[in-house]
């Protein structure tokens, strides 16, 4: 083993079949592509997994097939009755024999990395009682003489954890309870601390690992907030303008709805990649849009004024002219002139808003109207969009990579109804501002998202 390899934690995950070895590997290296199955004997060969950050290997795990013939192997090893110093050599002889590749392929596969210097991570099921059938395995592992730690995986319950601790403590330097299906970052960090205790020369590597994992977690958080904020704004303001002169067809409304759904799918893929859940089994109901209110008509006046602008301009202009005219007479007339002028201007704007669209002054158009599809103005839409993405993001953040159960995303999650009323109103107000082409404070939006995520229960 090279000096570089010996400086980083590298452990072979060993144990009886079907005790969660591959799940432990999947969880620790944050890779949901590791093959796991409820059927025993899924792992048939030793597979090496490197955990890398910033193009640097921080630790290495070797997933191994389970012990299949532990007692036979122990019987063979004990034939020559080696003393303690001779036992590692005896194991090397066992592995080196060509016939044993055929007779004991699983034991050869799991012992080879141990003889190359990997430490032992022995996994047992804390929900089943301890039995003497495990002692042959533990005895073989003890013969290797390499650093050893045991993980009690409470697959179904923790009924027998104490009994296991009592037994494992006699064979292993460290015993930890660890459930790969529920472990979060803090629990994984605790486990990595145990690596440092197992082998002192790994201390600096483990500290670096700790630092980098936390930094990476923060980066993932920050990037998630940015992605969600950008996506939400995009969905809220999304609008399509058909070609000039063409009426909006039903299929265009359908396309619009599909594009909104496509935006969500794209965001989901980005988040999955960000949180290393590339193989997440997701069952997703499509984003539902009420197509009946998607069509919008926009009138413009006098080369770009909106209806509101027209009223303001006309009213102000009228008020100024009226005030000026009245002011020439006397102070009282100035106020009356302001009021009358403002009202007259408003009335004129109202008249113009009905007459200008489509009219021309010579060749110059004085007003016009355009039809658009979207944005979606239903008041629930911004809430539903945000609730969906936060539901999924919560799942991605807290989901252990060893899990293989399906995640479901329904059309309208109940999540939004759990938000405080002020939070809902804030989101609605931001949506209205965006749809009115006004800017919002993105930092505030991201803080809002972060707050919702931290308050959300970890339901998935």
């Amino acid at each position, binding site marked *: 083993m090279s000096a570089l390899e010996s400086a980083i934690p590298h452990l072979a995950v060993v144990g009886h*079949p*079907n005790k969660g070895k591959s799940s432990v590997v999947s969880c620790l290296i944050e890779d949901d592509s590791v093959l796991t199955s*409820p*059927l*025993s004997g899924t792992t048939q060969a030793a597979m090496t997994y490197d955990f890398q950050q910033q193009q640097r290997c921080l630790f290495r795990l070797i997933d191994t097939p389970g012990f299949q013939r532990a*007692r036979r192997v122990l019987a063979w090893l004990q034939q020559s009755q080696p003393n303690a110093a001779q036992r590692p050599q005896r194991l090397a002889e066992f592995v080196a024999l060509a016939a044993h590749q055929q007779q004991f392929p*699983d034991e050869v596969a799991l012992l080879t990395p141990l003889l190359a210097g990997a430490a032992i991570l022995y996994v047992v099921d804390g929900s*089943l009682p301890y*039995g003497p059938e495990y002692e042959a395995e533990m005895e073989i592992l003890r013969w290797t003489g390499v650093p050893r730690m045991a993980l009690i995986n409470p697959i179904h319950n923790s009924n027998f954890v104490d009994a296991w601790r009592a037994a494992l403590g006699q064979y292993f330097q460290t015993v930890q309870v660890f459930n790969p299906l529920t472990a979060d970052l803090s629990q994984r960090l605790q486990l990595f601390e145990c690596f440092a205790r197992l082998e002192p020369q790994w201390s600096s590597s483990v500290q670096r690992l700790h630092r980098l994992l936390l930094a990476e977690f923060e980066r993932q958080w920050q990037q998630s907030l940015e992605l969600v904020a950008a996506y939400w704004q995009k969905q809220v303001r999304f609008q399509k303008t058909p070609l000039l002169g063409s009426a909006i067809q039903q299929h265009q409304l359908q396309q619009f709805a599909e594009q909104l759904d496509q935006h969500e799918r794209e965001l989901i893929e980005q988040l999955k990649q960000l949180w290393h859940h590339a193989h997440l089994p997701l069952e997703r109901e499509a984003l539902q849009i009420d197509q009946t209110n998607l069509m919008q008509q926009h009138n413009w006046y006098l080369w770009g004024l909106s209806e509101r602008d027209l009223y303001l301009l006309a009213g102000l202009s009228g008020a100024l002219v009226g005030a000026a005219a009245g002011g020439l007479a006397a102070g009282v007339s100035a106020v009356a002139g302001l009021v009358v002028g403002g009202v007259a201007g408003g009335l004129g704007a109202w008249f113009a808003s009905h007459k200008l669209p489509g009219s021309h002054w010579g060749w110059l158009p004085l007003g016009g109207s355009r039809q658009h599809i979207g944005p979606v103005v239903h008041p629930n839409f911004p809430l539903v969009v945000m609730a969906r993405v936060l539901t999924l993001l919560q799942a991605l953040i807290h989901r252990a990579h060893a899990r293989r159960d399906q995640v479901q995303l329904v059309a309208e999650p109940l999540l939004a109804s759990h938000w405080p009323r002020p939070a809902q109103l804030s989101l609605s107000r931001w949506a209205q501002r965006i749809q009115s082409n006004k800017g919002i404070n993105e930092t505030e939006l991201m803080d809002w998202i972060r707050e919702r995520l931290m308050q959300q229960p970890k339901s998935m």
Partner: protein
Amino acid sequence: MVVLDRELDLQHQSLWSSLILLAAFVLGLFTGAGSLAYQPQGRINLLLVWGLWAGLPALLWLVGWIFWFWQPRSARQLPASDLLPLWSGLGLQQLSFARFWLWWQWFWLMFAAGLLAVFGWLLVFSDLAFAWSSTLIQDAGLLQRVLAVIALPWSAWWPQAVPSLSLIELTQYNRIQPEVSQVMPFGQWWSFLLASTLCYNLGPRLINVLILLWITRKSPAAAQWTPTSPTAVIAEVLAPLQTLNRQQLPDNAQFLFWQLTNLERAHFAELGLVLGWHSYQHDEQALAQLVPGDLCCWWVSALHTPTAELSDLIQQARLAGIDKHVLGCVVSQPELPSQAVSWQHFCQQQSLAWLT
């Protein structure tokens, strides 16, 4: 990895295959019409047409069979060749070639049919004037001897289709010096050409089709196997799960308890061997107590998973003459998920009956 092309299976001819075969027929029509076209003052060069209609197809037929038998033996030794029945003797690569070749024979059959169709049409509705012309062969006698050999297959039952010396002499044709007399048997070559086409083109193709149909139909199981990807894992071929009701256990069934706890063993009134707890030598010696011929009933815990050590012991018992084994699961903690699926899989692998 070799992937068998299901499209070549004539039992499931796709639309495309039918269209291509139709195109082959049409191509044959045009080729036939083209090769039988001639100027009024000219003649159809019989040797050239014969070469195109009979000579070349016969040569290619021969080449095909040479290639079939010439394929290196190593090409047959593919990983999945063990899946094929022994009597087929074919590797996957050869089977793939056979199916491909079969399709080509259909193609050329349709082509020949097109040729013959236009030939027959022109024979009936037009006059065809054949003459032979060659730069190298000038001796009519030599040509007659060669053609007699070629005509051997049908000379006995269709002697009119064997060209005579007089026909050959009379129909020799020189393009730069065409001498045409009024009465010339130019059309009498039609029978030789027809017989040659039937014997050296259509006939061998038909024979090929029959042989290849027989070959490819004899290996249906292999023909169905298609790996899904280059890294596809060949699934285990497992025996079907046989089941046996506990009530059907004979009185002399021998009970063995594999790694059952005391609590789990307490469910059984019968006594039996307790294996899996002590050393492996102890288990091997315990198996020696079993009576050959009697049924062995293995009881295992539903909470545990099968290991190869158990299969080794079962194998040892089989070698000692105990060939009937059943396996049953004890469920001591029903609230926990059972490993029954793993145990059933184990039964299939070891050919054990599953006790219900």
